[in-house]
Every structure is written in structure tokens, then in C-alpha cells.
């Protein structure tokens, strides 16, 4: 233990984190773009036609990664919220808030693509079944979180309110995930699980995982960009921000 002398709190200070996030962001953005191109190539040109659904199943390469991302981002927001509440670190709250719009976007994409996939396969754009309804609830939780973050003028009070909301709202995530097991539903069960072999062709799985990683890197890149924006908006008068801006102007 004594060998690792990394002071993690150093990275939590704005003057270190702000430029670091700026340097990391393009790498994640490029990784996301490359993974998305490769993922779509595999999805459209390598993965075979589905025996039951034909070509329309190719929505899966977008739908499943977006749905995963929408759930996972909310859990990460809850994580940063808990850290923020526990340690009182401003940056943790700002990370949670930087993630929220992107989580909401992926939640919408999951609903939108699911709807367009449902019409040709189930015969309807929407049904009030457990999976769809709990995912719609997640959308409303995201929107409520964003409304809350914008509504409270006092930032430190707003941070705490949002954090508590994220922690409570996170209860919905396991409900979404297990909804296909707990209730009888039109939505199909998980295609891949930790304990069983995947029930899909290897190339299909490959395309889906590539797109899932693309969604991950996209989210990281955008969240880093947004957290920098939030930091600068809130702390523009502080010494580190003035220094950073001066450096940016001279470069």
C-alpha cells in the first residue's frame, strides 16, 4: 500500500482536473467515433440477417447500447452523488450533473428506437408493459433531475437536492433491468447475461458490444466537456479559472 503514493484528491481539485479533462476529452471522442464506425460496419455488413426478424433487427445495435447506457449513467450519477454527499466534494456533484443530459439523451434514443422496432415486430409503437413503462419512468426521472438542477438558485443547496434525488431515483434502474423477469412482458429477455452463453450469433454480439463501447466513450467525452463548462460557469471568478482562461487566450 505504501508504494502507491498517488494523491487522488489532487485530481479532485479544479486547477488540476480542468486541464486534465480538456486533454483527455479528444481521445475519448475519437475512440467513440472509430468504435461507432466499426460497430455499424459489423452491424450492417458482417452480422447476418436474423432468421426470425429479417433485417429490422439491426436496430438492436443502437437500441441495446443506448438502453444500457441510460441505466448505467443514472447509476454513475448516483455514485458521484453519494461521494459528493459523503465527502462534500464539489466536483463530484458537478460530474453527476454533467452526465445527466447525456443519460437523458440515451434514454430517449432507447425509447425512440424501441418504438420503431416494436411497430414492425409487435405491431405497435408502444405498450404499457413493465419494461417499457419503467424505462419511460427513467426518462421522467432524468427530466425531473435536470429541472431540479436548473430550478434551485443556491448551487450548494441545488447540488444536495439533486444528489438525494439521484440516489432515490436509482432504485428504478434494477426495476428496469429485472422487469423482464419479474413480470410477464412483451419485451424479450436479456440476450446476454453474466451466467449464460449469449443467445445470439457471435458477429451480432460483436456489433452490439462495439456500439456499447462507442456509447461509453461518447458519454465520457461529452461528460468531460460538460463538466468543464459547469466548472467554468460556476467558478469563473476564482484564481484557477482566471489562470486557465489566460492560458487559453495566449495559446
Amino acid at each position: 500500500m505504501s508504494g502507491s503514493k498517488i494523491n487522488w484528491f489532487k485530481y479532485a481539485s479544479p486547477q488540476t482536473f480542468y486541464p486534465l479533462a480538456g486533454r483527455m476529452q479528444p481521445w475519448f471522442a475519437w475512440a467513440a467515433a472509430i468504435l461507432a464506425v466499426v460497430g455499424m460496419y459489423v452491424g450492417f455488413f458482417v452480422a447476418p440477417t436474423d432468421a426470425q426478424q429479417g433485417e429490422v433487427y439491426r436496430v438492436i445495435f443502437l437500441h441495446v447500447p443506448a438502453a444500457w447506457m441510460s441505466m448505467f449513467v443514472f447509476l454513475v450519477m448516483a455514485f458521484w452523488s453519494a461521494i459528493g454527499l459523503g465527502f462534500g466534494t464539489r466536483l463530484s456533484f458537478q460530474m453527476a450533473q454533467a452526465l445527466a443530459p447525456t443519460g437523458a439523451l440515451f434514454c430517449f434514443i432507447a425509447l425512440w428506437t424501441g418504438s420503431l422496432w416494436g411497430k414492425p415486430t409487435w405491431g405497435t409503437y408502444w405498450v404499457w408493459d413493465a419494461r417499457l413503462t419503467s424505462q419511460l419512468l427513467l426518462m421522467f426521472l432524468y427530466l425531473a433531475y435536470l429541472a431540479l438542477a436548473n430550478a434551485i438558485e443556491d448551487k450548494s443547496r441545488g447540488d444536495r437536492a439533486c444528489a438525494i434525488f439521484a440516489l432515490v431515483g436509482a432504485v428504478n434502474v434494477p426495476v428496469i433491468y429485472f422487469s423482464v423477469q419479474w413480470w410477464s412482458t412483451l419485451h424479450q429477455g436479456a440476450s446476454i447475461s453474466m451466467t449464460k452463453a449469449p443467445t445470439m450469433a457471435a458477429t451480432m454480439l460483436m456489433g452490439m458490444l462495439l456500439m456499447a463501447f462507442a456509447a461509453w466513450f461518447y458519454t465520457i467525452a461529452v461528460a468531460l466537456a460538460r463538466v468543464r463548462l459547469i466548472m467554468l460557469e460556476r467558478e469563473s471568478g476564482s484564481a484557477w479559472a482566471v489562470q486557465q482562461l489566460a492560458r487559453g487566450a495566449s495559446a
Partner: protein
Amino acid sequence: MNWESWQAFLDMGGKGPFVWGSYGVSALLLVLEVIFLKRRMAALKTRLARRRPGKEEA
């Protein structure tokens, strides 16, 4: 190769509107998010640069 022609690719077995409606709208939203974010950052930096004391506008 899955597709005999561009036409077949765009047609997606007769389900083109559903597949391309999914990909098109999603791509548009993701690109818009990036554009809005960049614009907000640029606007904020301009605003802060103007506010800085002792700094002439270029």
C-alpha cells in the same frame, strides 16, 4: 456481404423507414448535443474574456 445492391441496403427488407428512422434520429441528436455543447463553451469563454478587467477587446 449481406446486400446485393445499394437499393437493397436502403430497403432493409422492406423495413427501411424503421431502421433508418432509428439511426437517423439518434445520429442527429448526438451530433446536436456536441454542437450545442461546443457553442455554449465558446459563448462562455467569450463572455468571460470580455468581463476580465484590464483586457482590451480584440
